[in-house]
């Protein structure tokens, strides 16, 4: 019972997904839209409630059991609590109950996003340039024929894609476009066929109950 119900449900839901592609008739599309616009949307919201529950549980445990770096968990919970209060009561566009500015100092959810989330995220990926530089020096070795081809094509594109590529030779930018339009398309398309077939096979196995990893074990 614990497996048959989910497996029949996934079969029916999968069938509905495929049928919505086959039948354009509005009297069927009405049901298809309800499934998508109401059911799927609400489920995705509840899935997030579950995720937050597990995140908070992990950090509460860390604090309770005084695990390593538990003090930082306090920081997380305070930051989460503070921003959640500001967001929930301050409203998405500072249109909520809670005032979100003291004098000229604003702290509505969008300001928090622009001045905390964006700088942290963009700094993390600015690191990538440094990792790229050190990886270029330490990891990208010409170990085999394939690696040589990869690096030669990379050099041509790296130089050709720059504005200065034009000054080296009139044809260089055109040659880079050619590399991207012909050999690159052939290589990528070959891989895309493989992956697409993999996607179709795995989707079929999931819907027909052959692939049960998502059930997550247990009886």
């Amino acid at each position, binding site marked *: 019972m614990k497996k048959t119900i989910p497996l029949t449900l996934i079969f029916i839901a999968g069938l509905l997904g495929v049928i919505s592609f086959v039948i354009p008739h509005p009297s069927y599309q009405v049901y298809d839209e309800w499934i998508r616009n109401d059911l799927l949307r609400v489920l995705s919201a509840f*899935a997030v409630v579950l995720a937050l529950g*597990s995140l908070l549980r992990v950090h509460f445990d860390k604090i309770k059991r005084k695990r390593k770096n538990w003090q930082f968990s306090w920081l997380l919970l305070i930051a989460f609590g503070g921003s959640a209060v500001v967001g929930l009561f301050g409203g998405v566009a500072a249109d909520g109950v809670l005032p979100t500015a003291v004098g000229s100092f604003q702290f509505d959810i969008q300001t928090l996003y622009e001045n905390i989330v964006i700088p942290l995220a963009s700094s993390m990926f600015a690191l990538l340039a440094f990792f790229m530089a050190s990886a270029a020096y330490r990891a990208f070795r010409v170990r085999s024929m394939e690696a040589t081809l990869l690096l030669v094509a990379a050099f041509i594109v790296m130089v050709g894609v720059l504005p200065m590529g034009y000054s080296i030779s009139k044809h260089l930018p055109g040659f880079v476009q050619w590399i991207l339009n012909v050999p690159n398309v052939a290589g990528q398309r070959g891989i895309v066929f493989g992956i697409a077939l993999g996607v179709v*096979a795995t989707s079929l196995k999931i819907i027909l109950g052959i692939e049960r990893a998502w059930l997550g074990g*247990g009886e």
Partner: protein
Amino acid sequence: MITILLCALVGLAPPTDIRVFDAPSDGGGVIVVEWNLSADDASIDGYDIYRSDNGIDFSKVGFIGKSRSSYSDQTEDGVVYQYKVAAVSDTLLAFSEPSTEIASEASWINVGKINIYIAMVIFGGLILYFIYHARRGKKLFIRKIAGLQAIDDAVGRATEMGKPILYTLGLGYIEDIATIASLNILGEVAKKTAQYDTKLIVPNADPIVYTVAREIVKESYTKVGRPDAYDPDSVFFLAREQMAYAAGIDGIMTRERPATNFLVGYFAAESLVLAETGAATGAIQIAGTDALAQLPFFVTACDYTLIGEELYAASAYISKRPLLLGAIKGEDWAKVIIAAALIVASVIGLLSRFPILNLFQ
């Protein structure tokens, strides 16, 4: 009447041979009007589309630029309409003959996608055929994939050094195929860490994948007869946000110093952050993804990389589950069919006038 006389005098040629039909395979509500261009097409502004539902009084419903010969009109299903098309040159109008009567209706089957249904039946049929045979125990051969041998060595290395293994499934959702393939490989790796009693760390970025991964690791430990060794906190939800997830895993890599990192699943830009930090800690790294854009990094920075479909084949090969092997065989045959279709279509396309490309719309 007067306008027609007027254009006869001025000589503005009306569009001819009006054809109307209900747009096929749609949800209804659309009628397509087609016509031959007016002789003066070059010098006119465009075409006015007139519609009437009683055959007498026509009202304008649309306009389209010159040298265009088709227009889709939004209509009410079941109502019978007639159309006229007029060539327009500022105030001058040249009306065509009225079209035949037509009514729009919704169709139950989308006929335009026949080629997709055929492809679905062929590919689905092939895959199910081989899975059926695999279930009945038929021996299916798959060639050895280099990256897989490394998995056993990597787990062995971690055990000797008494260091943990980090296995992360990337940012993918439960419905991403790379995530599913990675879950299979996680199941096998978890069995090995259970046997060798090696610490396993599985940080997750997606809530649903987290719940599934936890169950799979628990099941692998019980399957190998070591339910006691299973540590529930070894599998945990780190952060949905890409950057927080990358920073979190980097923190784990530098703090726990795992001997082996498995980066298998769907990855985005954070792939280099993980691969380079992992390389810096000196760990053996096995990567596998179908995210094409990240493959160049894994190929250059990791010891072994499963490229796109090799990841799907690896999850079949390593788990030796007949069902997965059957799917890979089905996909192989599908590739043969795609290659054959390419060759045959090219031969037809080159030698005959048949518009072969329309078969692949």
